């Protein structure tokens, strides 16, 4: 069943072609599906299964292991507040409670206007910059209640708060699902060539150099 748009289908094939085996593309394609719709529908998984030659149950089995994949609608902005140890020590939980009362929702819930979903998350690798939170995986370091309120206000008014992140990121925050605003693209004439492992059973050519000099 077709789920991907024509453009995304093209991207899907480009992604699949980067792997020696199509199944490796399942996770990237789930991201692509989430990018298209904000969350992952059954139709999306069935289409991914077709594209990668696995069953829908396998796609769901893989997908449901990873917490970034949402199998139900979430807000345009996913707000993740870290409460793991480093952040907790410096007020991560207080920040989370502030976020809960500001947005009027608790962990896992979405605001009625569909704008925000809030999550209490584990360490997001910004420990020295605690406490911190992310919006659609864009960082806001050393955040306090004011930072949080400002970010929410900006988002509500349609402006990007990225420069408040104290982390050198800028531009717009894409809506939930779009992770990277830049895609890898391998030009065909530059591609070394990706083959299934069973089709490349010999040593790469440059390894011959080892033998060559050994002889001389």
């Amino acid at each position, binding site marked *: 069943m077709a789920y991907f748009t024509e453009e995304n289908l093209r991207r899907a094939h480009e992604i699949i072609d980067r792997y020696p085996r199509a*199944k*490796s593309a399942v996770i990237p394609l789930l991201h692509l599906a989430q990018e298209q719709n904000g969350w992952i529908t059954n139709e999306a998984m069935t289409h991914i299964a077709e594209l990668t030659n696995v069953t829908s149950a396998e796609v769901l089995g893989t997908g449901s292991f990873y917490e970034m994949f949402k199998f139900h609608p979430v807000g345009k902005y996913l707000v993740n507040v870290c409460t793991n140890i480093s952040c907790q020590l410096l007020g991560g939980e207080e920040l989370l409670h502030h976020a809960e009362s500001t947005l009027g929702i608790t962990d896992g819930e979405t605001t009625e206007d569909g704008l925000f979903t809030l999550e209490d998350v584990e360490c997001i690798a910004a420990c020295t910059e605690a406490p911190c939170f992310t919006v659609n995986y864009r960082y806001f370091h050393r955040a306090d209640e004011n930072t949080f309120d400002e970010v929410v206000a900006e988002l509500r008014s349609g402006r990007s708060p990225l420069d408040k992140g104290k982390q050198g990121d800028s531009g717009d925050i894409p809506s939930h699902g779009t992770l990277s605003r830049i895609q*890898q693209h391998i030009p065909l004439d530059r591609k070394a060539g990706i083959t299934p492992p069973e089709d490349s059973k010999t040593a790469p050519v440059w390894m011959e150099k080892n033998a060559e000099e050994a002889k001389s």
Partner: protein
Amino acid sequence: MNNSAPAFAAGYINNDGPKLITERFQFEDSFTLERFLNTGGYDGLRKALERKPSEVHDEVREAILLGRGGAGFPAGVKWGFCPEGVWPRYLVVNGDESEPGTYKDRLLMERDPHQLIEGCLIACYALGLSQCFLYVRGEMALAQERIANALNEAYEAGYVGRNILGQDFSVDIVLHWGAGAYIVGEETALIESLEGNRGMPRLKPPYFPAAIGLYGQPTIVNNVETLSNIPWIIDNGASAYKEMGSETSPGTRLFAISGHVNRPGVYEVEQGVTTFRDLFYGENFCQGIRNGNELKMFIPGGGSAPWFFEEHLDLPLEARPVGEAGSMLGSGAIVVMDETTDAVKACLRVVRFFARESCGKCSPCREGTTWEEKILRRIYEGDGRPSDIELLLDIGDNISPGPYPVAAFSDQNLEAVPFPPRQTTICPLGPSSVAPITSAIRRFRAEFETLITQRDSIPVSAAPIEVEQ
């Protein structure tokens, strides 16, 4: 942009020591190909291509470059474990950085992606690896953008892909997105994930990646920081590298110091020279505990590491002495906690992490970590039972049998039990949940007892910890 003022990456703090992998962090455009080439970028690759692959491998072996992902295994030795004559071989870069307290690989990926790419290329050249996968933690959107951009630039400019630098060396580097699962940082789980599966670890033996890895082929898994060191080593030579650091741990390492210090941040530090005390209190480093408070405890190497205390401050930042004292440097994540910290709460918070992140494969980890968390939460919320302390220790013993590695307490006549812990599980995640419990109970048993026996006299934090149902 030649004279751009030292901007420094968010979180990174420049100190006076040698800079092998953070040199470019001072430039705002450190992640661009242009800046990279202006600052000696791809010189290591050029030098490597002039030599035999085996010589490049020897250079890395000679440098005793210890893995930076946590286990500290020498990269050059690991590279030698690929079985002869079995092709193809792959390189998988572990950029899944998720260990609590760890923040360094994200910096390296965001601030200097070309350095990492160069390291990958050299590794591929040395070992005949025919394809490289850069597995980047899903939650790191900016890192993905910077790497995607860097790869696009590098492909375009002929540094990656077919006939690199016009030679008969060709390798594709593929950026792969993770999707949120700490366990995927474990190398065999990483491989499962890269194959499109649930990230559940495989049992070693037989699944040592170097022998049976991605698609069942020999696979080298290295950490981002490990590989980021390679260009410098090849460019400057192993002996120059060994001039820094200690004999068994040469070179520098990135340490992320978080928690109750005045100047938390990521520091590039010579291994074995600097001590924890220097790091916490030194002018060049963290400049002391906040508000002049006393140190209560610190985690020397990520959430998985047994806790250290006051008496460990003079240990050097070096794998061996830290191991001998009963903990580990792990992924270079140091979390400092001052006297105001509630030991039970800290313990609960770290255990909750492991319970949430257990992949679910092994019964002791799947069931045991959630059980530990439930008991700790009960104790913390004032519903503890007197038998709970022994129960926690016994559950821990069933996940990680025998004396759990713990720091030595000279004052209590306790000797350190060295790493690695024994485990009834496949991977060390389950046993890692035992570290905070054993550490906290051994040192702060009284706090547990007080919570259990005098539940009303202790002010319970206004912010009870949410626990996943």
